[in-house]
């Protein structure tokens, strides 16, 4: 497999070597070796069921590994010292619908180690950043789909993590919100955070600094979008993905 291409001088934020995950006898991640460059938005693109979520769960330490090693900031993935430094948003919002927005953020902020003034400031900044102003006192139960998705992200962003693992944060959202979220992701990367963002929607691939194309538990490519287009000679990233998945191309195209 390809190794990391950091692209700048710093070492990789995440480094995986020979990662294998088997779930219920099925091989979900098949010998992955990879790296994640710091200060970039890396897209993890691939069809549903290809192992994106399992890989992300490995990176935050909630998925057991069958073989191989994965380090995050030089520590084993899921190490207690990483838990406040890595923000994680699952596909479902994973918040308490029977609490208000403020109450959700206050609880998760406390768990992340924020107290008193710094907790209040972090909540205010996150609400502002995700454009959730004026919703603080409302039960999350009453939120729209787009608002819910932003609450899930808000919890992940709350403690200003150095690494963000975001599982399909933009899927199913309206175009305006999607554009805003992608500009938020790039803003966070400009501030020094590293992001891994998954999606099964190929038109999001072009918005990433770097891409991991994934299919059936393996990486098809690990490079910036321009390089992938150049290497495959494809007109767009969707065609590039199909070209890289060539042996199964007919099946994909139907």
């Amino acid at each position: 497999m390809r190794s990391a291409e950091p692209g700048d001088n710093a070492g990789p934020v995440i480094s995986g070597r020979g990662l294998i995950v088997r779930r219920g006898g099925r091989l979900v991640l098949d010998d992955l070796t990879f790296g994640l460059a710091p200060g970039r938005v890396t897209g993890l693109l691939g069809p549903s069921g290809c192992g994106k979520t399992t890989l992300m769960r490995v990176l935050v330490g909630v998925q057991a590994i069958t073989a191989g090693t994965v380090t995050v900031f030089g520590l084993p993935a899921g190490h207690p010292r990483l838990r406040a430094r890595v923000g994680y948003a699952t596909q479902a919002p994973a918040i308490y619908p029977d609490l208000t927005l403020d109450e959700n953020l206050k609880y998760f902020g406390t768990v992340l180690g924020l107290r008193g003034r710094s907790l209040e400031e972090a909540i205010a900044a996150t609400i502002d950043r995700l454009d959730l102003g004026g919703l603080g006192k409302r039960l999350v139960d009453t939120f729209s789909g787009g608002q819910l998705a932003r609450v899930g992200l808000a919890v992940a962003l709350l403690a200003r993590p150095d690494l963000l693992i975001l599982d399909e944060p933009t899927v199913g959202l309206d175009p305006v919100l999607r554009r805003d979220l992608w500009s938020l992701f790039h803003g966070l990367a400009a501030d020094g955070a590293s992001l891994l963002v998954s999606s099964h929607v190929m038109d999001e691939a072009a918005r990433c600094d770097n891409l991991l194309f994934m299919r059936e538990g393996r990486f098809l490519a690990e490079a910036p979008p321009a390089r992938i287009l150049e290497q495959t000679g494809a007109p767009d990233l969707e065609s590039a993905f199909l070209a890289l998945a060539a042996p199964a191309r007919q099946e994909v195209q139907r």
Partner: protein
Amino acid sequence: MNPEMPLARGFSPVLAGATAGRVLTQLRHDPRTIAMMVAVPTVLMILLRYVVANSLLLNRVAPEYIGVFPFVIMFIVAAITTQRERARGTLERLMAMPLGKLDLLAGYGIAFGLVACVQVTLVLVVSLTWLGVTLPGSAVPMAVVAVLDAILGMASGLFASAFARTEFQAVQFMPAFVLPQALLCGLVVPRDQMTDVLRWLSDVLPLSYAVDAMQRITAAASWTSAISADIAIILAFTVAALVGGALTLRRQTS
């Protein structure tokens, strides 16, 4: 294959308190559930009073039921609440954050323990005044045993929820786990009149000791060592259920 994280990585009173506060706030937003948790044992006692009608018999059976009703209600509430944490993904989010398992379990224990105190106070006050139940001595031992039973119910519910894949299954654990205990604990037939096999079964079920303790409290005006022994056994079952709950709260899934 993978080394499971240690049972508890320290304990933080702040995080346990924050978790208890969060659980109580969730309840506060759901007044109907609070009303049911607090009022149902009392309503059942009122019903029992009119079903039994004979005041001598009522004096004998009412305390036994005061030990059982809070147990049953706490069991189901705790089982469902924990199952919801799993289903909504909040448990996975918390396990990826710096929250210890003990913090979570203690938070639940504190929150439901406080609710149990309110629940038991109400049922005792109504029983000893309006319903005319009389005790040979003080009501304090009975209150202590009833609250401990409620906490035991909560701990058992937490543990049982680990074996429920869906909320539907969690609900069905109520009859599956609790009704056999209710039949064997001495409520229906005194335990010394049971056949050996049933007697042995009832000896290993925690609710039997709750009913035992209540029977001893109604039989004697003062505290006896036998009551202490029953309470010690109830506490031991509670600790065992909490340890079981901690072991089944997996930070990692395979």
